[in-house]
């Protein structure tokens, strides 16, 4: 019986997924979910860097009133490209495509995803979307913002066609990945891995996949309608041709609000894993946390109109959407309470991944609560299209998803690469990210509540100090992110070999695989006899504190 013994396994000299074939061809045509996850990682890191540089340029332009480095038209393009790249090519695919691909099959004890060829096809379809974005950037000026609102967007020329086509195609990649994951989770779980024993990361990936499959076609249809309107002159959204511009917003947000949950749900899954492992406790309220992901996924479809309170949609509609928006706070609150409860009386270890998890808890709670504020009809009228919304969005997307992604990367880094990283550097990077992020975006809550509109090139003198402070914060944030990048690169170059289970995790990727895993993941079929957070199953009775236990693991 192969019940886990959690014994660190030496990997030197073993065949792993990294060294079994080193040719470029073997990487580009790989069907291995782990390698495909790394292909996504490398691509998304490059796009993230490009979009991050654009954000820095936007902040530098806003350092002082009037022109600082670029003209207004260029500024409009900078923030539009930043938004489009970050949303469609970084945050939407990031956690599912990188960690979902790499970790989920290991979590469920599978040899691969259900459709490996489809998985590789998803990556290349995603790449085609990325290439079209680059073409759109070269062809002309995209200054629509990431929302492509009509009628302005439908009056622009070729660049918008290329960009919307890019989003359309990247959406297919998202749908195919979602389908692949749903089938994998249903059909390929190891014996004994019941739904009640699934790691919460898998639950969150499952909920995300459902949203991907159900919602993403709508953005495809929307972009197709936009293309038809532009190319064939059919009046759909443009009032000059008899169309309805608010209808575009309905279409757009019917996808894009659930997309916010595509972006954040997998991050919730990462945080659940980190909270359990680094508190050395079973995640509190496992079933509630798991089902709250499904509840969020469903409710996420019913609230899109809260983006449109001041668009001219009917009052009836606004009231309905506002009420349902409050409901989303319930399952989200369930998660936050359970994460805090998991730490209560736990043996909390403040390793770098846990520091990112704690940062997430702080930042996401602010982002979530300000979201409830924006769901209040009367308040939203004042705060709509101000920096308050920008700050809220970034607290959820950057403070939530990206911070969780980085925490997840640190956590699974020893498994992915077989190398340990420098803990001190990791912690310094996290501190800089936390301080930089709050300096950048908390300032924007104040700016927005004082009436500073978003997307403006110039602003009144009274906002100058806060804008400058926000820009300084963006520099600290950038330094923090580069420290994290340096930590990973240094680990690749000079990192000590990682044991199979450096954190003392209880899920299959730690207990049943080497670091890095073999090409086929498991040497023998794992048989699951316990839950993913049943640490006592492995570690009870040895009398060691977690710190001492982790130290002994590192030495081993």
């Amino acid at each position, binding site marked *: 019986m192969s019940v886990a013994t959690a014994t660190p396994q030496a990997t030197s000299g073993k065949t792993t997924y990294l060294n079994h074939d080193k040719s470029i061809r073997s990487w580009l045509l790989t069907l291995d979910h782990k390698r495909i996850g790394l292909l996504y990682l490398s691509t998304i890191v490059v796009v993230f860097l490009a979009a991050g540089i654009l954000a820095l340029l936007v902040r530098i332009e806003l350092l002082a009133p009037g022109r600082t480095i670029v003209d207004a038209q260029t500024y409009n393009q900078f923030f539009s490209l930043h938004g489009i790249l970050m949303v469609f090519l970084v945050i939407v695919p990031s956690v599912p495509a990188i960690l979902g691909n790499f970790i989920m099959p290991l979590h469920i004890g599978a040899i691969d995803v259900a459709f490996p060829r489809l998985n590789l096809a998803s990556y290349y379809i995603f790449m085609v979307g990325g290439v079209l974005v680059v073409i759109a950037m070269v062809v002309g000026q995209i200054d629509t913002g990431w929302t492509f609102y009509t009628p302005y967007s439908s009056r622009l020329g070729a660049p918008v066609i290329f960009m919307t086509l890019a989003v359309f195609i990247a959406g297919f990649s998202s749908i195919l990945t979602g389908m692949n994951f749903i089938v994998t989770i249903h059909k390929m779980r190891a014996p004994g891995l019941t739904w009640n024993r699934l790691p919460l990361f898998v639950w969150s990936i499952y909920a995300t996949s459902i949203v991907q499959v159900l919602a993403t076609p709508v953005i495809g249809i929307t972009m197709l309608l936009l293309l038809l309107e532009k190319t064939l002159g059919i009046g759909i959204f443009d009032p000059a041709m008899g169309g309805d511009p608010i209808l575009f917003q*309905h279409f757009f947000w019917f996808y894009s609000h659930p997309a916010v949950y595509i972006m954040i749900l997998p991050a919730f899954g990462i945080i659940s894993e980190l909270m359990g492992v680094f508190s050395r406790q079973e995640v509190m309220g496992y079933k509630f946390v798991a089902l709250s992901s499904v509840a969020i996924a469903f409710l996420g479809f019913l609230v899109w109109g809260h983006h449109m309170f001041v668009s001219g949609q009917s009052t009836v509609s606004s009231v309905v959407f506002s009420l349902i928006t409050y409901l989303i706070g319930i399952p989200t609150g369930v998660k936050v309470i359970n994460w805090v409860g998991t730490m209560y009386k736990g043996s909390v270890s403040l390793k770098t991944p846990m520091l990112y998890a704690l940062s997430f808890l702080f930042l996401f709670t602010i982002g979530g609560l300000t979201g409830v504020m924006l769901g209040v009809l009367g308040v939203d009228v004042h705060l709509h299209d101000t920096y308050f919304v920008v700050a809220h969005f970034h607290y959820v997307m950057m403070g939530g998803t990206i911070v969780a992604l980085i925490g997840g990367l640190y956590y699974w880094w020893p498994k992915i690469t077989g190398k340990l990283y420098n803990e001190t550097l990791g912690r310094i990077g996290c501190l800089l990210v936390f301080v930089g992020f709050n300096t950048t975006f908390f300032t924007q809550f104040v700016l927005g509540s004082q009436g500073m509109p978003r997307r403006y090139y110039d602003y009144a003198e009274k906002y100058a100090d806060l804008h400058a402070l926000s820009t300084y914060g963006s520099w600290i944030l950038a330094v923090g992110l580069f420290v994290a990048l340096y930590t990973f690169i240094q680990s690749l170059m000079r990192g000590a070999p990682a044991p199979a289970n450096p954190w003392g995790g209880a899920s299959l990727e730690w207990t049943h695989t080497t670091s890095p895993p073999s090409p086929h993941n498991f040497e023998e079929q794992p048989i699951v006899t316990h839950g993913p957070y049943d640490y006592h199953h492995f570690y009870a009775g040895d009398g060691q504190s977690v710190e001492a236990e982790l130290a002994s693991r590192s030495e081993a």
Partner: protein
Amino acid sequence: MAHAEHAHHITPFRTLLGVFLGLVFLTILTVTTSRLDLGVLDVPVALAIALGKAALVVVFFMALKWDNRVNGVVLALGVLFVSIFLVFTLFDTAFRGDTSNVDEVTIKDAEAELAAPAGDADHGESAPAADH
């Protein structure tokens, strides 16, 4: 994996014929109702008939009735979410012009502004959409 589990169901000829006749009947019904003036029921009736036809095709011709239940759930989910989109969008489009409640709200400053000779006469009417 038992092969029989995936065996293709052979639908009896009588069933297929019955469904075909049902579809012909519904088509005649579509044409007939299109010539009648049903007022506000015009579109709902046409959609209901179309839905009936689609259901017959999916359930019998596409053999969903004998297929794995999961496929039925997937289809139902798709229909549910399309319905959510349409119904919630109708909350907007069906009540778009309903701004009477805005007129009933008394805001002292707004009243003073309207009373002023240079006031914009259209302002009150378009207030909810002022941002766009």
